[in-house]
Every structure is written in C-alpha cells, then in structure tokens.
C-alpha cells in the first residue's frame, strides 16, 4: 500500500492557508471599502488598502484560472 501522505499533507496545508488568507484579505477589503468617513481613520487610506486587498484577490483568481488552463 503506497499512500502518498506527502501530497495529501500538501493539499491540506495549501488549501487551509490559501483559503484563510484569501477570505481574510477579502474581508479586510470589504471592511475598508465600506468604512464611512465618520467612523474615524482616514478614508483615503482605508480605500487604498481596500483596493490593494481586492487586487490581491484578483491576482489569486487569475492564478486560479491559469492553474485550470495549464
């Protein structure tokens, strides 16, 4: 019986880290984009941060499409 534990572990690790990271980053983006000026902080900074977060997620999606097509 030759079970490829390494590959299984790798799938496990990559899936877990990538999912939590992406969901976290996207959530930060949503919070940043939705923050109203009255709630403190500089709105410009929040907006820029939000766009950066969405950018990271966009890159992840493109990488995903690349993986599917490759």
């Amino acid at each position, binding site marked *: 019986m030759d079970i490829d534990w390494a590959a299984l572990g*790798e*799938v*496990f690790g990559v*899936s877990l880290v990538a999912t939590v990271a992406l*969901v976290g980053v996207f959530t930060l983006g949503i919070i940043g984009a939705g923050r109203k000026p009255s709630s403190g902080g500089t709105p410009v900074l929040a907006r820029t941060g939000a766009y950066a977060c969405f950018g990271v997620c966009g890159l992840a999606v493109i990488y*995903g499409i690349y993986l599917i097509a490759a």
Partner: protein
Amino acid sequence: MEHITLLIGIVIVTALVFDFTNGFHDTANAMATTISTGAMKPKAAVAMSAVLNLVGAFVSVEVAKTISSGLIDEGSGIKPEVIFAALVGAILWNMLTWLAGLPSSSSHALMGGLLGATVASVGFGAVNGDVVVMKVLIPALAAPLVAGLAALFATRLSYRLTRDTDERQTAQGYRWGQITSAALVSLAHGTNDAQKTMGVITLALISGGALGADADPPLWVIASAGLAIALGTYLGGWRIIRTMGKGITDIQPPQGFAAQTSAATTILASSHIGFSLSTTHVCSGAVMGAGVGRKGGVVRWSTAGRMIVGWGLTVPAAGLVAAVSALVAEQGNLGVTAIAVFLVASSGGIWLASRRQPVDHTNVNDMPEAETGSTSGADPDEQAPGVVTAAVQAVSPPPAAGPRGGDGEGLPEAEADAAAVTAEPAEGGDISAEPATAAATGHTASEPTETEQADPDATALRDSVPRQYNSVGAASRSSAGSSTSTASSVS
C-alpha cells in the same frame, strides 16, 4: 466515420448522457450556496455555471488518456461493452441520487461502474486494489475534512474581523466574492469532468478502430462533451442544489463566501498537486465547515450523514448495476439492446417519480421536505417489508398526513436494493421497474398540490416564509433563514 459500429455509437451516446447527468448533478457544487445566499438568482446562476462549464471543456488541452486513472488494468484494452455497462451503472446512480437530492460524486459513480463492469467481464485480477484505496477511499475521507476545516477557519476569521461592522453592509461584498469563487469552481468542473467524457468517447473510438492508438479527441468530441455538460448544468439539479444550499445548514453570505472559496482553493490545490479530490465531496465538506464555523450555525447532521452514506454506497451500487449490465451486454447485440432499453426505462421512471414533488428554480430555496418533517423512524420501516416494497415506497408518495421525511430518509439503502432488484433479472429489469413507474404516473397529475396542502406545519412554513425569501432584501433574508432553522430543529 464508417468505422463506427452500432455498439460504438451507443457507447458515445451513453457517454454523452452520462456527461449530461454529471452536469446537472454537479451544478450544486458551484452554485448551491450562491443561490441560497441570494448572491445570484437561480436561473442566472445555472446559466453562468453552464457557460463556464462549456468554456472549461475547451480551456485545457491536456487530455485524460486513461479514463480509469489506473483503477483497472487497461493494458489489454477495454471492450466497448464494458465501457457501456460502466456508464449505465454510473448514470443510474446519478439519477437515483438526484431523485433523493443527494450530492454524490459523479467521478466515483463512473469509477464504481468501471470497477464493477471489469470485475464481471474479466475478474478481480484486473483491478488494482492499491489504486482503489489511493484514488477512491482516501480522497473520499480526506476531501470533506480538508475543505471543511478550511471553510471553518475562514468562516471564524471573517466573522471575527467583521464583528464591529454592520452585516448588511458587508453582505453585498461577500456575495460578489462568492460569485467569483463559484465561477472558478464551475470552470474547473468543466475542465475536469467534460474531459472524463472525452476520454471515454476517445477510448471507445480507439477500441473500434476509428482513431489511431494515441489520438487526441477530435473537435466534435470536445464540442459535444462540452455541450452535454453545459446543457445538464443549465437544466440545474435543483433537488441537489436545495440539499446543499439549504438542507445542510443555513448559509449566510460570509459563510457562502468562505465555503465557496475553500472549495475553489481545495479543488485547484488538489488537482495541481496531483491528489485528486472529488468536487462534490470538497463542496459538501466546505458547506458543513462553514455551518460549524458560524456561531449559532446549525448543521443538520442527519442530512450530512445521509450524504455520507450515499458516498459510501456510490462505488458498490454503481459497480453492481454495471456488473450485471456487463454480463448481459456481453451476450451480443440483444444483450446490449436489453440494457439500453433498461437504462431508458428506469431513467424515465426516475424522472416521472421526480415529477411528484418537482423542485425547480421557483422553490429551490425552500426547505427540503425531509428536514421540515420528523426525520426519525422511517428507515427500519422501509427496510422491513422487503426490498421490492422498499423500492416502491422510496419512490411512491408518503402518506398525506404523515411526516414527509419518509421520502428522503430511507433512500440510500432502498436505492441500492432497488438497483439490485431491478438489475438482477437483467432482461426482466423493465418489468420490475414498472410498478415504480406506474405508482409515479398515477400520482403525477394530482399529487403535488394535495401533498402541499395536506402537510400543515411544514408546508405552511415553507409557503409563507421562504417564498418571499427570494424577493425581499438582505435584512429579512437573515431573519427568515433563522426562523426556518428554528422550526426544523424544533420538529
């Protein structure tokens, strides 16, 4: 194309039919939570998924050369009869699980069919036991765990990060994120699963001598496989979508996003690293994980348990039908015809049975019946009177005033038995499928409305609350969701 014999033609058509069932069976994987969180309207969601499945079929040039992934010894060449029998087993299992609203892996059904047909045709010697464990058993156990844990932590994290934020304000963002993840799942599905069908058709063409030994699939094979899976997806396996989107847990937008993202990353990671996981298992696991991850989220483990029983039965059940089909099909043209007629008759019977309580895009977000009624006690009752009665009961209307849970509850076991019963006297298969069909037809016209009214507690709730569910905004959506969940956990 003069090389294409009648048998090869039948195999190609059957392969496309399998592709079609694969499409509507797996719509739920990408779109169930997208539909239940209201991120997309049901019709729009399946349309998008269908287009992406079609695109996915053309996207990748890498073709699965071995359809069985080494499960069985293909060295001596697989006979077209064996491929045909395998497809019959896989299609019937897909139809039965669709009728029961159970998400189950189409790949496993195909693998089970191939295993059964090969064992019947060649013997156990042609099966690589190690590979079965490696490609079927371990992934089936690992997939829901991996995706489930990822979705769980992601859900926890997103609720923690947004605890100071207004939920309505973030919901729209999460819906967009979810649509994107679902699109990736659809695309990956089209690429993976349409290729399986292309592989089957190509293999059949090669075995018939219409193509050279190492030929790539011709364009018409790619196009027809892509179209079949897209059509199936667009038809929408609404029963399975309902189970996955509503039956397992009540999904809120952040959960839907976490679940769908977990599914997308797990599928991509696994296929990239080369440890293939079943899309269905991944997505179901992700939904369960997201359900556990939200504070106050209720996962209906009875539904989850039924799904897992279904997964366990997939390979043996599809294998059994395929084995019997293979034995009959090898008797020559008459045998192949008998199996083809059997397939058409039983699929038609299952479709008629499904018309008793149709589930479509209008009621897909209602609660599954099995969850609104009592969910206990149906099982032993259905097992006791013998398999034929059980099979008929499983497809016949439940008592009007009784719990509607009886319908879905005993299905996995009853199905396996039904499959066995209908398959055993192989040529007589149509006869034993007949009672079910008759029972179903008898009730098609009048039954749905009657049952709707006859089941006061469950139906009243389903009609009053979730009907508006589609049209009202996000705020009432969450409250409607929680009221349905309370009702079901109380009963």
